[in-house]
């Protein structure tokens, strides 16, 4: 059920990013909902299933973005493992943890894009990344904050409703 909800969120997020956000946000900038999901997976899921799922989501993203298939699969997998390997150093009680990790994930993703783009003959991709990076950080940060507010509100408002996966945020130390 949890995996199904992640997949559903990923698919809906991708559809929104391709069909809705371009009509709303100017200058090609749009929130990266899949990156936010990957960071959340890094916080809440174990390495095996989380890594596999991140790679799958990356491949799904590759279908809708860029011209080099597999690039986002690699990037999202690395972002997931990056979050997973550093999460134990942070205070899990801090409500801004996810926001901070999303910002770090955006920077990490941008660096990986430039690095992996050199193998894909991506030309001056680094110029585009550098040019849009501040705006992208802002977009992703605001989107992550809004999503967290909505998710926690839903959990508080409908206390019987459990957003699948969200309650695992506090259970990761049980591993």
């Amino acid at each position: 059920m949890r995996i199904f909800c992640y997949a559903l969120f990923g698919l809906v997020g991708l559809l929104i990013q391709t069909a809705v956000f371009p009509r709303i946000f100017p200058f090609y900038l749009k929130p990266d909902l899949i990156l936010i999901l990957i960071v959340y997976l890094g916080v809440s899921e174990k390495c095996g299933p989380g890594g596999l799922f991140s790679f799958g989501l990356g491949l799904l993203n590759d279908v809708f973005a860029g011209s080099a298939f597999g690039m986002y699969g690699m990037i999202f997998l690395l972002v997931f493992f990056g979050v997973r390997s550093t999460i134990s150093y942070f205070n899990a009680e801090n409500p801004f943890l996810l926001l901070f990790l999303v910002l770090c994930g955006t920077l990490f993703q941008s660096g990986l894009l430039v690095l992996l783009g050199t193998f894909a003959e991506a030309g001056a991709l680094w110029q585009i990344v550098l040019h849009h990076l501040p705006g992208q950080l802002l977009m992703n940060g605001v989107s992550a904050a809004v999503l967290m507010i909505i998710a926690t509100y839903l959990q508080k408002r409908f206390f019987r409703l459990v957003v699948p996966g969200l309650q695992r945020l506090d259970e990761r130390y049980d591993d």
Partner: protein
Amino acid sequence: MFDLLRRYRRQILISGFILAALLFYSANLRRGGASTLFERAVLQVTAPMQSALDVVWKGAADTWTHYLWLIDAGYENDRLLAENRVLTSELMQVREVRLANERLRKLLDFKAEVDLITLPAQVISEDASSWFRTVVIDKGSDDGVLEGMPVVVAEGVVGRTIRVAADQSRVLLITDASSAVASLIQKNRTRGICRGLGANLTLDFALRLEDIAVGDLIVTSGTGGVFPKGLTIGHVDEVSPVEYGLFQPVSVKPTVDFSRLEEVLVLLRESP
């Protein structure tokens, strides 16, 4: 005699009146349609009174219908508001159809100019990320689209197909960083490669000694194997003269407005 007149006085009087009226009428017929003094005088006198009466009557009627007899006003208002909404909606639709018609007309004119088989397509979505520049069109392999086919609009080159499914294709825009188009400057045939920079393009490998000025038209050279020769790419936006080196940096502004891409043409190599 007088007895006779007295006896038939009534009949004679009536006949006299009738005869006089007939004569008066006959005389007026001969004068044409001109107004008589009598007519003018009467009109002159009665006109102010008529006006005053009209104002009073209209005022009374207005008071009655607008302030006293308001039984239908609410319904009428609701009906007019609903009608207004419908008409406004129809007007918006008509405007949209008119704009689509203008775009398609331009595309048809361009289609007539291009000596290739073309396939019209609609842009249905854009790239999922902020870093790449691709769009998805609603035509795929079932319609004869193959990978690597040029996509254009009336204003110029859009890009080329990179992924093709049965009913959809992804198009790599020329503004994507991984896009490169063999091109030349129309004025002096200077060759170069137009590469994407997100919003603009850069013309690489333009020789330093070539005379390139802002506003020069850049077209496809036809040597890249994808785009036919002579399609418009953009205009030179900025030239930065350099003192040494082989090439000069040239910035190009595409003629196509990629933020408003709706209908495109795929240039097919063979009939679908």
